């Protein structure tokens, strides 16, 4: 793909968001109706308040959807360019991998060890730092966090095999 190619217009994304809102609003209305959205024996039922919230969502997002298609020049502008999206993905994809490494049903690593790798990864990839600087900064930052959270404020974070090797489990 070309580096400055647009990924969807503003109008397309406006429509996508408005439709997502519509679906969400429909779920709210449907679930509130299931719970009972009227007056029970002892007062308003559980779905009484959310039902109207859902109705408001439906009304507002219908208008937003209509306005998305009536937007002129701004609607045709690019929502995000491919080069920008690539930058965003270089943050989102590793972040998802990072969280998945700490929290998965198979083999979970600790917060601290994964964070060291996470910071080091960006320093190597985007910053093009040497190994020594990378390790000093990433390990130093996480040790500082460890002291602050685990020791000073006694807020425990999830730990894995590597942290256990240091005697913290």
């Amino acid at each position, binding site marked *: 793909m070309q580096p400055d190619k647009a990924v969807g217009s503003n109008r397309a*994304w406006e429509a996508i968001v408005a439709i997502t809102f519509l679906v969400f609003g429909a779920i709210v209305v449907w679930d509130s109706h299931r719970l009972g959205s009227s007056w029970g024996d002892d007062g*308003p*039922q559980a*779905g009484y308040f959310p039902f109207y919230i*859902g109705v408001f969502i439906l009304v507002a997002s219908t208008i937003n959807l209509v306005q998305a298609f009536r937007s002129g020049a701004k609607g045709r502008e690019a929502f995000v360019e491919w080069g920008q999206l690539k930058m965003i993905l270089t943050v989102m994809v590793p*972040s998802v991998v*990072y969280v998945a490494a700490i929290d998965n049903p198979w083999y979970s690593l600790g*917060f601290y060890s994964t964070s060291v790798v996470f910071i080091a*990864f960006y320093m190597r990839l985007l*910053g093009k730092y040497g190994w020594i600087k990378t390790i000093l900064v990433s390990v130093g930052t996480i040790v500082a966090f460890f002291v602050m959270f685990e020791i000073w404020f006694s807020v425990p974070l999830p730990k894995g095999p590597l942290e256990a090797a240091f005697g913290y489990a």
Partner: protein
Amino acid sequence: MHELELLMGGFHTALSWFNLALMLAGITLGVIIGVLPGLGGANGVAILLPLTFSMAQRPGGTTSAIILLSCIYWGALFGGAITSILFNIPGEPWSVATTFDGYPLGQKGRAGAALTAAFTSSFVGALVAVLLITFLSPVIAGFALEFGPPEFFSVYLLTFCAFVGMSKGSPWKTIAAMMLGFALAAVGIDTVTGQLRMTFGISVLLKGFDFLIAVIGLFGIGEILLTLEEGLEFKGTAAKLNMRVVLETWKELPRYWKTSIRSCIVGCMMGIVPGGATPASFMSYGLAKKMSRDGAKFGTGVVEGVVAPETAAHAAGTSALLPMLTLGVPGSPTAAVLLGGLLIWGLQPGPLLFTEKPDFVWGLIASMYLGNIVGLIVVLTCVPLFAAILRIPFSIIMPVIVVICAIGAYTVHNSMFDVWLMLVFGVMGYVFKKLDYPLAPLVLALVLGDRAEDSFRQSMLMSQGELSIFYANKLVGTITTLSLLLLFSPLISMAWDAIRGRRARSSE
């Protein structure tokens, strides 16, 4: 002068060495948070909130905890000005108006003057707002003691109508975002009937959505993604601030006393009404431009153009705590996070707080005076240090901020599911920001959703389902009318412009 006595008691609490150290730490952390991209007042306080859990359990600890958190807030308010003036990046939405004249001043080599003017006028704005809180909040709290469910619901209504009425963008997007917040707040166990709402058999949804996670994701991760679009480099003016520049600027500042007073009034009024800090800074800048003798020079780099928005933003940011303390209705997302902190520590914000926990309330108010003095000294002396933070390469800062956000999200409930949610909210925040869906009403609705629903249900029970209860007496009727006026104010002002436009044309 009963208030003064209570305030002295508050100073007694706040002036311990431990609390002063916390103030210094809070302000410093706050400025750093305000300077860093992706971290701001709201999510900075949200991330650091879990740190206070163990502190708040000690006797008298809640006062220390709120001092730490509120000082982070003041620090973030100060920090926003640094990035606006030196880097043309508004650290907070309410510093946008500061860039108009602050950045050109920096380009002209007068960054020092701009910074001094910004910090000093912030301080003045905050001070006036704290004075207002000192004398007005006991009155409002006393008044609110008589409030029943309909009155409280009408105050919530006022809050949310104010968002719709004062939003710059499409009111329908504001409504959609706000209602999304209410709907997310309803997920989980219904407190009245005990039924499960919108959980669809998924057990992690039982406890519902915590707004702290939403704040960290929407404002933290979302902001990082937006910053990434702009590229990785920050180009800024060098920060030099010595005593001579400070004193020279201080000599110049009294000339703008009219602008200052006007901005204080605008700021305090807009701050008490929710969602006010950002519109207050713009409004105050606009007014100053219109009414100043140098109005035509605004935008090219005049000190007065920095004084106006900064005074108003700080006055509004501070007075946003007034409705939070007295009514339990926060005026800004950061005030909402502070309110969340109070609830977690086991304090019930609202009028009873003043009678039941006077130590806490007056300790907090006294710490506002002290915190702003400490803040002014810290920022005036340490600007180069804080500006240096922005020179740390993005490839280091960005992953560190993601790690901080993840830690913050995890520690709220010790749950990894929340960290996943944070990522989802991050993408949502990015898309919403790009399409002009406002985030503040979403967050506030998420915070107040349950309380608004409870007061609505109780009102409905009292009246057996008649909406006329919101016009049952003068008080509730006035608030409801005000809300509706605010809600329809975009329509009213459009009609007004149309009438005036027609008259102007016919008189030509």
